[in-house]
């Protein structure tokens, strides 16, 4: 007990000092904090339930993605069956069918079957690590080709779509001008968006839920639409409904399936006003897009084209002359806010997959502030009560335990700041609980010392035994806590993860301060004062 090596004392003091140093920036006002050098800018983050803000869980509509994949493959099939060298090279196909995750079609000339299959094989790619390809090609009844989307092909598509979606969401949230948003993928088909300090999550939700797939397509002059819906839909065209409040009562338009130009070719989109001074969105195409736009509009003067957003027609103006310069204006019944949202969505690109909000948790900054204040008050009162209790029960040894407890508080904050951990409301509860539980180790040790003294052991020996015999139970007890905390971290959402983090850090630091640090104090005291009796 008495031989407490110098290197040990020094390293304990250094770690306590570092703990206090790392904890300080968290308590500084934001202004002072910003002036600190970069390496010192470490502080405990506040969770959304304390800082206020929104937590949104977005889930991809996988069925929708599959449908897109199937229709894209149909387009690929049609293009690749058209010969590269001219009409002689064409493979005639028909009876196209699509259902579930398969598409199938008839090859009219049986001699071309192998050629057709080879051409399609070039369009498929390896997916995953199993050597499987994304599409499986089979010949059925010697006339039909059946293409099936494989599981790994689907997973790969979902993975790519989610990665793109994450990047786009990232852009959109940043465009809203929020500070420090968190956007991470969760599982295979989900994205978590956390935006601190936001008052109204509605705008955010509207923005994130919007696919923003913009297409310019020609109106088919041969198609006719009645009041109730499509009347005559020529081959190669389809009926597309108007967006709510658009179209002056017409249900929709018959549009060519072919997309003249799409939102992928945008380089800019801004909220603007049209000639009637109503909010609109001005867009600019890149050079390839501008050329296409000029060429197609030039060739179709006096015909109409439609602006289609997410499968709904916004407007279908008549082309008066070739539109040069790659500029266009999208009008519809916008407010300044909705026009601005659309502009942001268009600028950041269209989502490859539809996303739905499946979980939302919003806390206003006022409620968060209230929680911090009450939590801090409760934390301080709880700490002081425990300190007083320890003092009246254990005297000098209680003082040592209390100093250790104070260090423990600093160390928890320091470690959380160092790892940039997040403090949540349950985390505050975890903090208070840790205060109550941290003294347990000292209680164990001190009670053991009392017992050993009662058994008639001399002071040094009693203290020595108190520390060594209690350590075993302290260790076992803390392992069970870590097991519980680990499971909480595994299953919990943000706030509970925060609780588990505080709990785990608290367990580790409290063992250090309650056992090692108090031991240092006690050893020093015994060595210098050499008491023959102790009051414990």
């Amino acid at each position, binding site marked *: 007990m008495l031989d407490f090596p110098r290197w040990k004392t020094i390293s304990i003091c250094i770690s306590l000092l570092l703990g206090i140093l790392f904890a300080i920036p968290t308590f500084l006002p934001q202004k002072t904090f910003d002036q600190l050098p970069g390496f010192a800018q470490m502080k405990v983050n506040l969770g959304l*339930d304390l800082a206020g803000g929104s937590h949104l869980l977005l889930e991809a509509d996988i069925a929708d993605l599959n449908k897109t994949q199937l229709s894209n493959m149909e387009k690929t099939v049609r293009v690749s069956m058209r010969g590269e060298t001219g009409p002689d090279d064409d493979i005639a196909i028909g009876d196209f069918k699509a259902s579930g995750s398969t598409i199938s079609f008839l090859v009219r000339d049986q001699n071309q079957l192998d050629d057709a299959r080879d051409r399609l094989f070039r369009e498929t790619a390896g997916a995953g690590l199993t050597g499987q390809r994304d599409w499986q090609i089979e010949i059925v009844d010697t006339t039909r080709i059946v293409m099936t989307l494989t599981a790994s092909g689907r997973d790969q598509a979902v993975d790519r779509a989610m990665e793109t979606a994450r990047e786009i969401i990232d852009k959109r949230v940043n465009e809203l001008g929020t500070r420090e948003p968190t956007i991470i993928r969760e599982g295979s088909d989900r994205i978590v968006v956390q935006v601190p300090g936001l008052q109204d999550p*509605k705008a955010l*939700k509207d923005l994130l*839920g919007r696919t923003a797939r913009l297409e310019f397509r020609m109106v088919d002059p041969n198609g006719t639409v009645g009041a109730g819906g499509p009347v005559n839909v020529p081959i190669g065209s389809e009926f597309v409904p108007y967006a709510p409040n658009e179209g002056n009562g017409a249900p929709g338009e018959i549009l060519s399936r072919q997309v003249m130009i799409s939102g992928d070719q945008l380089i800019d989109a801004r909220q603007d006003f049209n000639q009637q001074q109503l909010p609109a969105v001005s867009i600019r195409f890149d050079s390839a897009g501008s050329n296409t736009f000029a060429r197609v509009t030039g060739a179709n003067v006096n015909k109409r084209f439609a602006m289609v957003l997410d499968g709904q027609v916004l407007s279908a103006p008549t082309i008066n002359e070739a539109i040069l310069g790659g500029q266009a204006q999208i009008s519809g019944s916008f407010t300044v806010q909705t026009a601005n949202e659309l502009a942001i969505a268009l600028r950041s690109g269209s989502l490859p997959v539809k996303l739905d*909000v*499946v*979980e*939302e*948790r*919003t*806390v*206003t900054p*006022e*409620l968060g502030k*209230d*929680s911090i204040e*009450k*939590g801090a008050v*409760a934390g301080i*009162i*709880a700490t002081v*009560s*425990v300190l007083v*209790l320890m003092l009246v*029960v254990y*005297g000098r040894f209680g003082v040592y335990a209390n100093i250790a407890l104070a260090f423990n508080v600093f160390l928890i904050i320091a470690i959380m700041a160092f790892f940039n951990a997040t403090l949540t*409301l349950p985390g*505050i*509860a975890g903090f*208070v*609980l840790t*205060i*109550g*539980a941290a*003294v*347990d180790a000292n*209680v164990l040790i001190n*009670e053991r010392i009392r*017992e050993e003294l*009662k058994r008639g052991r001399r002071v040094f020996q009693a203290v020595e035994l108190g520390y060594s015999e209690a350590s*075993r*139970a302290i260790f*076992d*007890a803390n*392992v*069970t*806590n*870590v*097991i*519980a*905390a680990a*499971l909480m971290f595994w*299953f*919990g*959402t943000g*706030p*509970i993860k925060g*609780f588990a983090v505080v709990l785990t850090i608290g367990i580790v630091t409290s063992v250090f301060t309650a056992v090692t640090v108090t031991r240092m104090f006690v050893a020093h005291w015994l060595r210098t004062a050499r008491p023959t009796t102790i*009051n*414990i």
Partner: protein
Amino acid sequence: MRLLKLVPDDTNIDFLRWRKLASFMSFFLVAVSIALVAVKGLNLGVDFVGGQSVRVEFTQAMPPIDEIREKVGEIGLGEATIQQFGSDKAVSIRTALPEGDKAVAERAGQQLVSGIQKAFPTAKTGSVETVSGKVSGELLRTGAISLALAILGISIYIWIRFEWQFGVGALGRLFHEVALTFGLFAVTQMQFDLNSVAALLTIVGYSLNDTIVVYDRIRENLKKYRKMEIIPLLNLSINETLSRTVMTTVAMLLALGVLLIFGPDVIFGFTAAMLFGVFIGGYSSVLMSTPVLVWLKVGPDSFVPRTSAGIMGGERVERKDDGAVV
């Protein structure tokens, strides 16, 4: 300075004398808790049943709950569950989400907030939570799994560190505490949500501290007093650690009690559950987890490695392996 002793020196209470009564009480309380959960049910929050929950804070005097219920009913989103927690100025209003179309669900969320703001213009909506049925199902499942894993994992750890009897004792005790806490949620109809599961996990982790301390002492005494009969030995172990059990329980109750009274009312249920758990824990570490060891016939042999018994010497070989030390 005279120091305060929560438990007088030389306390020697025959706890084991009450073991039958205590066990009966425990079984009875567990049965009552299970019955309560079965009959009254748990007041599951949106985390586990899906739906939307809005926290409304009234700046002036709060209208009666019935009036709130009536006005929320007029919004047309079905029956609302209204719950007051901790503070007398804030309630949580919960409604189900319409089935089917996700867009409908989204609209309903906005409808509830704007409806409340229209009905109570001075009230503030502090937080909004919307959880879809799919997500709530997953949360319920992982919550249940993690609770079961925690109980099992900790019991297995005790089994490895001690002996199987101790593992069984820990398992029984944890089950007992979790069941009683569920009973508390059923009686009070406090909202049971993700935080409640976190509270349960914390109870599971912390309440075992007591058990481990007592078990550790039993193990030590079993080695020390090889000839002592098991019941006096268990009594001795409990009494020796009693002051520590009381002191730690008091410290935890103090800290959590302060949090319950002065802390944010948002986590009132969370704190209440933990406080209850610590309280029950104090009782069951003394009167519940130790008697189990009598029935499972723990004896000095429990900690003698079987292989070495033959080599080490006569005394232990003579001892019959029927564990009949009682």
